[in-house]
């Protein structure tokens, strides 16, 4: 792994962590949603400080260079994250739909009852 790549990874992980902490400070993100990004930053930091870890795994998997292993690893993790986010978005979408439906039904119930009360009071 070249030194340039290592320095780049270190900078990137610090920026990611700083960014996430800033979002928490500004109350713009839930803490549990930042755990993934902070964990990834720490992992990248470890890999760039101890590049032997990456070399070991690249040899183990028959990948030519350590940096290729790092790229593959990151792509894999990000794919997983995107997959999980798609599931989450889909669930959120469904939740919004049921919320809107629920509000519409409640409103109708309320209107119906109001009409009933008004008509009975008119009859009296």
């Amino acid at each position, binding site marked *: 792994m070249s030194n340039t790549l290592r320095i780049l990874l270190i900078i990137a992980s610090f920026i990611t962590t700083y960014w996430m902490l800033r979002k928490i400070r500004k*109350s713009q993100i839930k*803490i549990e949603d930042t755990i993934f990004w*902070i964990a990834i930053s720490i992992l990248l930091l470890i890999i760039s400080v101890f590049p032997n870890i990456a070399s070991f795994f690249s040899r183990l998997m028959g990948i030519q260079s350590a940096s290729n292993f790092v790229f593959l690893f990151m792509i894999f993790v990000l794919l997983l994250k995107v997959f999980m986010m798609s599931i989450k978005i889909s669930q959120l979408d469904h939740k919004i739909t*049921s919320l809107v439906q*629920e509000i519409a039904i409640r409103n109708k119930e309320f209107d119906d009852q109001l009409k009933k009360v008004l008509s009975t009071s008119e009859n009296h």
Partner: protein
Amino acid sequence: MKILIIIPAYNEADNIERVINNLTNNFPEYDYIIVNDGSTDETSKICKANGFNLLNLPLNLGLAGAFQTGVKLAYEKDYEVIVQLDGDGQHDPKFIDKMLKMMNNTDSDIIIGSRFKEEKMSLGIRMIGSAIIKKAIKITTGCSITDPTSGMRLFNRKMMREFAYNINFGPEPDTISYLIRCGYKINEIQVKMNERVAGNSYFNLKRAMQYMINMVVSIVFIQWFREKVDEKCQIL
């Protein structure tokens, strides 16, 4: 003093009737509200049939969201104190009176009903998590909270405002550690909790692991960087 007991309930059909009847028969001096967190069983039906005081969430928000709904209601209806109780009957309302007295005597913001303040912690898989969180709070704040995962807590009105409207204010140990750091007074009182009579706990192994990771990372690392509540108030 106007007190509201908030009871978040998720699939507690087997327990809720017993819990609320005990509350209304033996402790009529307290108001209560059940927050049904989108249960998939008969919880809401049973509450309606019995005429219980009910907030029905159309979806499952999770404990933090359900509790926050109750706190918002309490804050808007001008309650002075809220007590969080579980819907499964683990918490005995007879301790509320003691908690109230302790709050008044020590001028505390939060009182936690602790299982282990005076009694030894029993060893078991379920207690390992609690012990780790305890240690994390001790190391980072210097304060000993003997039972940080206890779900029986009392909050004063100052705390209600924060819990009702802020993000990252779940009723969980990391919020407790954050509030200690902000300089709020948190005290504990020894309580005895009953075993769960029926139904399953919300926690399975996977959820418990996830919860532990979130709590430990949040307490040990993230809480250092959060803006203190009081600082924010000054800006506003």
